[in-house]
């Protein structure tokens, strides 16, 4: 397996899965804050 393929796999995987978990973390943090403040919906 060439190094370029491995580097590609890691960078793209990092962006996609890193982006996904980062956004989920923000949502969970926000949900937690909203829960503490009381949900106005």
């Amino acid at each position: 397996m060439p190094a370029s393929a491995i580097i590609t796999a890691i960078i793209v995987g990092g962006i996609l899965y890193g982006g996904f978990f980062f956004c989920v973390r923000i949502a969970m943090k926000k949900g937690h804050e909203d829960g503490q403040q009381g949900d106005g919906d």
Partner: protein
Amino acid sequence: MAHRDRWASRPAFIMAAVGSAIGLGNLWRFPMEAYDNGGGAFLIPYLVALMTAGIPLVILEFALGQRFQRSSPGSLHQAGGKPAEIIGWWALAVGTTISIYYAAIMAWSWDYLACSIWQPWCDNPQAFFDGILQVTDGPGVIGGISWPVLAGLAVTWIAIYWIIKKGALRVGKVVLVTVPLPFILLVLIMIRGLTLPGSLEGLRYYLTPDFSALLNAKTWLAAYAQVFFSLTLGFGVLTAYSSYLPKRSDVANNAFITCFADAGFAYFAGFSVFSVLGYLAQAQGVPIADVVKGGPGLAFVIYPTAISLMPLAPVIAIMFFLTLLTLGIDSAFSIVEGAIAGLREKWHLSQERATAIFCVFGFLVGLVYVTGAGFYWLDIVDHWMNNYGLVVIGFLECIAIGWFYGARKLRAFINEVSDFKIGWWWDLLITWVTPGVLGWAIVANMIEEFRVPYEGYPQWALWIGGWGLWVGLIAIAVLITSIPWKRIGKEQA
């Protein structure tokens, strides 16, 4: 205000949106597009397309539903009046057409799942596929009805009816199974694939970048098309789903999560597909290029061939076809739900009644696809609905919001309710970049269409199943728009 269906929670909504976005295309389209367009280098334009068209359009469709608390036609009506409403109905008409043939593809999956223990496709997978479908010589030779496919079609529509007749609450429960299950199954298939000889050679084909492909316009067009088709854009599904959220819920972060999950799944599916293709090439002693195939050919011919050569083949076969079914079912019922949401609002039908009418209609029209010529008609309709239905709808949505309603106005709403704010870049993308790229794709596809008849089909078939159907759906959209919204009390447009 009349009672509106609601998601049980934000995670339920996200799971449903992700389930809708992740479909059969993630498994059989993305890996092949990557392979055909520079391998690992394709992932660069793919990420650019995701950021500049996929995410902005998902934000737009989510924001429309949430801002106006209505389905796609209702939201567009409020945003841009009757001309914009036509786009919404056209989206639902195209979605309905796609859901009908999608159900037929799922019917094939049911048949293959039923055969998985004995694997009768081992001797000649292509002949078995043609035999199950009873494929004739061309779209003009209707042939007989394939009873196994008819039975699978009935099972599919009954499943869709059962899932969505109770609305968002039941959908929210079903996606808790149908979204993670294919991912888990695919992980198991990938682990099996990676332990087989030749799998790393397959991954080498998938991931090794050929950067010269980036200089080819076709690569960029393919990346934008992949992102667009993969995210269930232009169906009105995302707008309908988000309209079941309270108005003050997040928009931007939900869109990012949905898009990353969809792209992440497609990327991951590539590992599963190419490890198995590498094994198949090695087992048959041929180059990988000889076994690579996308679309239904990958799922129903190439993959079964590879599975039949593996140890524990029946178990892997059951896992694979369950993956196909669970991937397909949430996309299928989301498209149906998007259409039903519009019909319910327009005529104030109950969810159960609208679902029943739609499913019976879908089953009856879908009978076309259980005939011997069904495979050809499915191929033609699929090509036109994707390239000239969904893409044109996406283009028109950008024009309606970016140029007439005002991207800035919608962005102000998005920023008011979202976990994080989006900047002026979104206005720029929705007003100029995304419609520009989609417009380019439409023109490029049309030029190619008139130069070479699609797949060599006879012109009369392309005019009926392609342009004829396309114009017919626009006429239906105009007709429905001309009917006034049924009013209840003081609400409604």
